[in-house]
């Protein structure tokens, strides 16, 4: 067993034994139950739109909106999970004296970082995918709405959570657990806000707002992945309903172009490399 897998296993064991995953599981089951109930009520109430003369596809509007909300919720909780698992990985653990006994072993600091990253990325990405596909299945079976590209959409959402885990790990080299956790959640909020501004900018239209949103997308690509996932969710919804759902409930869908995935991969590698470089130079 190499250093990376030993550290990753230890981090996962910690999450299990400290009942982090149990709490998340319980809350997710509650969320899933409420979601299914809400979904059921929502699609029952669509009967009033049956004779709508505007051509509004009420079923697609309701389905895309509620799956979009679940995507937002899933990514938000995945962000919290990724941040929780990595926020104190370096400076926080060093301040508590947990790190020193580990890194004097025949274990490189890069291996330690990668182990922490693998654990956080696997847990948070898996969580986001479970919530997302759970919501898709519930919505599909209750309301008969299925996203246009469910797998591509889920892959982008999970990618967002993985990017946040890498960023949080980078932040943990410089900041204590509380400061880094706050920074990550604020970065997530900023990204979301930029996405909302972008949606407004597209609707008005305002080149300035579009430029702000575009810049934020490249600086914080998890936000761009989220908006691209929304795009893949709603791009086949036609007519008025399509126009409405593209504005989205929490950030509008946006096509960032073919460079988004390569950029996200480069960004991920860059964040991890920067974390390894800075950690390697840090006195403990």
């Amino acid at each position, binding site marked *: 067993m190499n250093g990376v897998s030993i550290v990753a296993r*230890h981090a996962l064991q910690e999450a299990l034994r400290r009942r982090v995953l149990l709490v998340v599981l319980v809350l997710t089951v509650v969320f899933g139950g409420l979601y299914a109930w809400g979904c059921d009520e929502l699609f029952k109430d669509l009967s009033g739109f049956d004779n709508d003369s505007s051509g509004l596809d009420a079923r697609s509007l309701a389905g895309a909106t509620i799956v979009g909300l679940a995507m937002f919720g899933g990514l938000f909780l995945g962000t919290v999970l990724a941040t929780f698992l990595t926020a104190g990985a370096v400076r926080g653990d060093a301040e508590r004296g*947990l790190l020193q*006994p580990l890194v004097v*072993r*025949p274990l490189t600091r890069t291996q330690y970082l990668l182990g922490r990253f693998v654990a956080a990325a696997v847990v948070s990405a898996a969580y986001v995918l479970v919530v997302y596909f759970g919501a898709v299945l519930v919505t599909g079976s209750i309301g008969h709405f299925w996203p246009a590209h469910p797998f591509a959409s889920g892959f982008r959402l999970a990618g967002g959570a993985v990017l946040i885990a890498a960023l949080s790990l980078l932040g943990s080299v410089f900041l204590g657990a509380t400061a880094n956790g706050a920074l990550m959640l604020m970065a997530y909020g900023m990204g979301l806000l930029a996405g909302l501004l972008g949606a407004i900018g597209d609707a008005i239209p305002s080149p300035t707002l579009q430029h702000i949103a575009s810049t934020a997308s490249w600086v914080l690509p998890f936000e761009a992945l989220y908006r691209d996932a929304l795009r893949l969710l709603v791009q086949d919804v036609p007519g008025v309903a399509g126009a409405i759902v593209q504005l989205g409930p929490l950030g509008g869908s946006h096509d960032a172009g073919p460079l988004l995935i390569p950029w996200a991969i480069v960004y991920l590698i860059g964040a991890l490399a920067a974390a390894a470089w800075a950690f390697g130079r840090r*006195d*403990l």
Partner: protein
Amino acid sequence: MSPALAIAGLRKRYGRHEALRGVDLEIGEGELVGLLGPNGAGKSTLTKIACGLVRPSAGTVQVAQPFGYLAELFRFPGWCTADEVLLLHQRLSGSDGGARERGELLELVRLEGDAGTHVEAMSKGMQQRLGLAQAMIGGPKLLLLDEPTSALDPGGRRTVRDLLEELRRRGVAVLLNTHLLSEVEHVCDRVVIIDRGEVVAAGAPADLERGSGVEVELASGLRTIDGATRDDVPRIVADLVAAGEQVYGVRVVRSTLEDVYLGTVADAR
């Protein structure tokens, strides 16, 4: 025979503060060396550089592999049992000692009945002893111990002292960073005193201790002749008898390591 630890010209600068100013230190195989010095002298910095936690500004450090380290301020995850802590460190160090090694180490630090005890349920002293067991995973050739007895009661300190004797028997070299001079006096082969980042004295404890006077018990009470040595005793007694004093006893007073330490550090300032 290569030394277990060889440090040459070691310097460490934190901004404008120079924590270490050209330290040279060598520890042979199986040698127990006590590192003494006031707070802020650079002892912990030296130990941390030796085990790779801190990067030196200049100088070279060669450490025998494998080595063990016990930090001054350390913690193990509270959710782990003592056995799990040792298992993790076995995995990280590539030790194939298995359950037998873990059991032996727990016995050595008198935690044999606590393999299944969670760290969060252990006293500070127990955690410190577990830290010592962790440092010995994988059969290290060198142990770097930074204040290993700071949280221990007298019984725990005795355990550590016995442990150090056992390590000497096994041929493990030890750098013992401590404030407890009595520990150093009892177990160390050599003492290195550093102050303000420099070595100000080094040698065997007995060599560092010096005669500091002769105490004579007379009918009128005790009289101390400062600076006199064992060689001066016959002359002192003869002079006193010639002066009409009755001599009931004579004792050569030797300075303790504590006196040497305090004197050396005061001189350096």
